[in-house]
């Protein structure tokens, strides 16, 4: 009974560490440290993606057959922890974490050959078209229609909360192909070229002033039937697969541990209530990374997925919000500045009030409120835990 990493794991860790030391430039670290949104912007993400792809570690969580390096779950955990400690950019997950696994699991050979290389090279930038204005947590009520027209579908509807859609050239979307069927049964999974006529992207500004989210309007957009993943009506099954990947896919704890440490480096030692909150957050984050390591060890040992992994997203969201609220409090008056310019590491940014790390604090605080909403609200997560893990 021990979580201590065995020698071969330590060697692997050192290898990752050495790689990060060498290839993660100061500019990339700085960009990552001053990113206010969930994911790095393309100017940071693209070069880092290329570096990882060159090393063969971009799709480290994909199976060997799909081009992954064949790492164990524990190796993935170690890799994620080292990346977090080193302050690597958070690559957008829509391609690598979401549609990638869908493509290699449900796509046909032509689709795989067509899309996977471009996904990895960064030529394709993906956005996710799931949510709609009327259907947030209740995905099955989606209304975007795809009507068959020869070898194409004509897709009409509206998607919302589409992260980084303004950078994307590809959209994967759930659409209703059969309005007669039961809500879940009539849904299909389509790949849409954002350059198609009828696609309009409208920005949604966050309260922080960040532009990460968008609405995507689809007006009789012509999508080849060949761009459908799986069978018609299989969309719900694929979506569930994807959402489980989203929830349980990667480790949150290491990033939270590292972010809290970086915050405390920037603020210096905290006193009083702030010190107490920092300790509590640190214990929560360390517990979470260990919970994630336990799950990785179990999966490597061939155990079936544990319901414990359901807690990850919920707990991570609350720690994230706790850290970002602590930051505003700890930076004092400097935590209240919120320049309109972006990115925070860009040349157009005004001089910070107080330490540079304080400048994105308010933006981060506001943005991180989204963590308990998107990707399944905390309320949905708790119900899921009660049912699947507790057995109520």
């Amino acid at each position: 009974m021990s979580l201590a990493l065995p020698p071969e794991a330590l060697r692997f860790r050192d290898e990752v560490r050495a790689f990060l030391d060498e290839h993660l430039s100061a500019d990339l670290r700085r960009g990552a440290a001053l990113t206010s949104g969930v994911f790095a912007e393309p100017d940071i993400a693209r070069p880092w993606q290329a570096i990882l792809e060159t090393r063969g570690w971009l799709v480290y969580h994909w199976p060997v057959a799909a081009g992954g390096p064949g790492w164990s779950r524990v190796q993935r955990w170690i890799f994620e922890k080292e990346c977090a400690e080193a302050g690597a950019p958070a690559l957008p997950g829509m391609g690598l974490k979401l549609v990638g696994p869908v493509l290699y699991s449900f796509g046909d050979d032509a689709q795989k050959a067509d899309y996977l290389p471009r996904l990895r090279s960064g030529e394709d930038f993906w956005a996710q078209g799931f949510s709609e204005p009327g259907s947030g947590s209740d995905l099955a009520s989606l209304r975007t229609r795809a009507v068959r027209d020869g070898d194409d579908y004509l897709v009409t509807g509206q998607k919302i909360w589409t992260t980084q859609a303004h950078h994307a050239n590809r959209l994967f979307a759930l659409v209703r192909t059969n309005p007669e069927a039961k809500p879940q049964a009539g849904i299909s999974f389509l790949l849409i070229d954002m350059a198609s006529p009828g696609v309009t992207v409208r920005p949604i500004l966050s309260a922080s002033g960040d532009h990460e989210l968008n609405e995507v309007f689809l007006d009789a957009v012509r999508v080849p039937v060949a761009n459908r993943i799986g069978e018609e009506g299989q969309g719900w099954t694929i979506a569930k697969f994807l959402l489980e990947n989203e929830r349980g896919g990667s480790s949150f704890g290491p990033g939270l541990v590292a972010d809290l440490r970086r915050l405390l480096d920037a603020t210096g030692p905290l006193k009083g209530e702030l010190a107490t909150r920092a300790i509590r957050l640190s214990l929560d984050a360390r517990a979470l990374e260990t919970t994630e390591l336990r799950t990785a060890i179990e999966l490597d040992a061939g155990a079936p997925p544990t319901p414990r992994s359901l807690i990850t997203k919920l707990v991570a969201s609350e720690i994230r919000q706790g850290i970002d609220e602590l930051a505003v409090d700890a930076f004092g008056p400097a935590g209240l500045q919120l320049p309109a310019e972006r990115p925070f590491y860009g040349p157009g940014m005004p001089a910070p009030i107080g330490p540079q790390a304080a400048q994105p604090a308010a933006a981060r605080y506001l943005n991180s409120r989204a963590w308990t909403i998107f990707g399944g609200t905390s309320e949905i997560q708790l119900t899921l835990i009660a049912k699947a893990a507790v057995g109520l």
Partner: protein
Amino acid sequence: MMLEPTEEQALLRDMVSRFLADHVPTDVAGRGSLPLADWRALGDLGVLALAVPEAAGGLGGGPGEIAIVAEAFGRAAAMGPLAECAVLCACLIADGGDQASASKWIGAITSGQAIVAYGGPGEGLGDLTVQRAGEGWILNGERRLVRHGAGAGAFIVALDDAPHLLLIEAATPGVAILPYALADGEQAALVRFDAVEVACEARLQVTPTRRRRVIAMTQLAITAEMIGLMQTLYEATVDHVRQRRQFGVAIGSFQVVQHRVARLFILLEQSRSLLLRAISADDDAFATAVTEAFAYVADAALRLAQDATQLHGGMGVTEDLLVGRGHRRLLVLSHLFGGAIAARAKLAA
């Protein structure tokens, strides 16, 4: 003993509310300070003279009147230099300024023609030193969070370790104003003082008791503004959970949503109680009662804003809805004067 506003207070509230309803429609609310023309119109209505003693040409309003106006601002998510300028700086000049300062600034503030901004001491607010020089002083250092400092005609600078309150015009040589945006969209400034020569007339002679009271009045205004905005966010949230449907029913029918909104109701009622308690406190107890109200409300406001955002779902984190913008405003207001943490520390001391 009377919970309702007096007839005069009700007239004041209705006047301000009506003005703000006309001039700050919902889609504009919570995006930044009122335009100067509107501010002047408020001055014409007498709103900006409210806190100034009658002897100094003001309306001599008390905590009740100040809270009523500030709450109306919060209710409408309207912004402007109400607390620090029309309450704090106006009163300090009226109380302690010489004839020249008073005649130059009080009328200008109360008519909405000029802003005097406040640079008080506190953790993270910057260091300042003041040295005697002949009849006057030399000022060096900075104030980091001077709300509305970008457009101010003058500053009142306070020091923690000295009884000094100095009124310094923005155009004084050595004063450098670095404007920046706060989270609520208002402009603040970092103001640097580089060997600024301050004449002896610039010193405001305010007794410590009076100074404490005027600062408490300012904090009361901020507390009342938070409560007004809490009420607006609360009502928006109740409406939303009644109307928003998921899984075929209104989300307000879910037990966890009901309990969460019930908690917000409690926060709001308890906040209001402490505000009323502060308004009703006698002079000796006033400053502490305000600190207590602020300590509670600053926490309650942020908690309410967070839950209002959560219950609004994705829309709650955008700039499109008032709930997101109100959240930003409450983030700023709840952190002024060191926020709830400094207030609790003060109460524990």
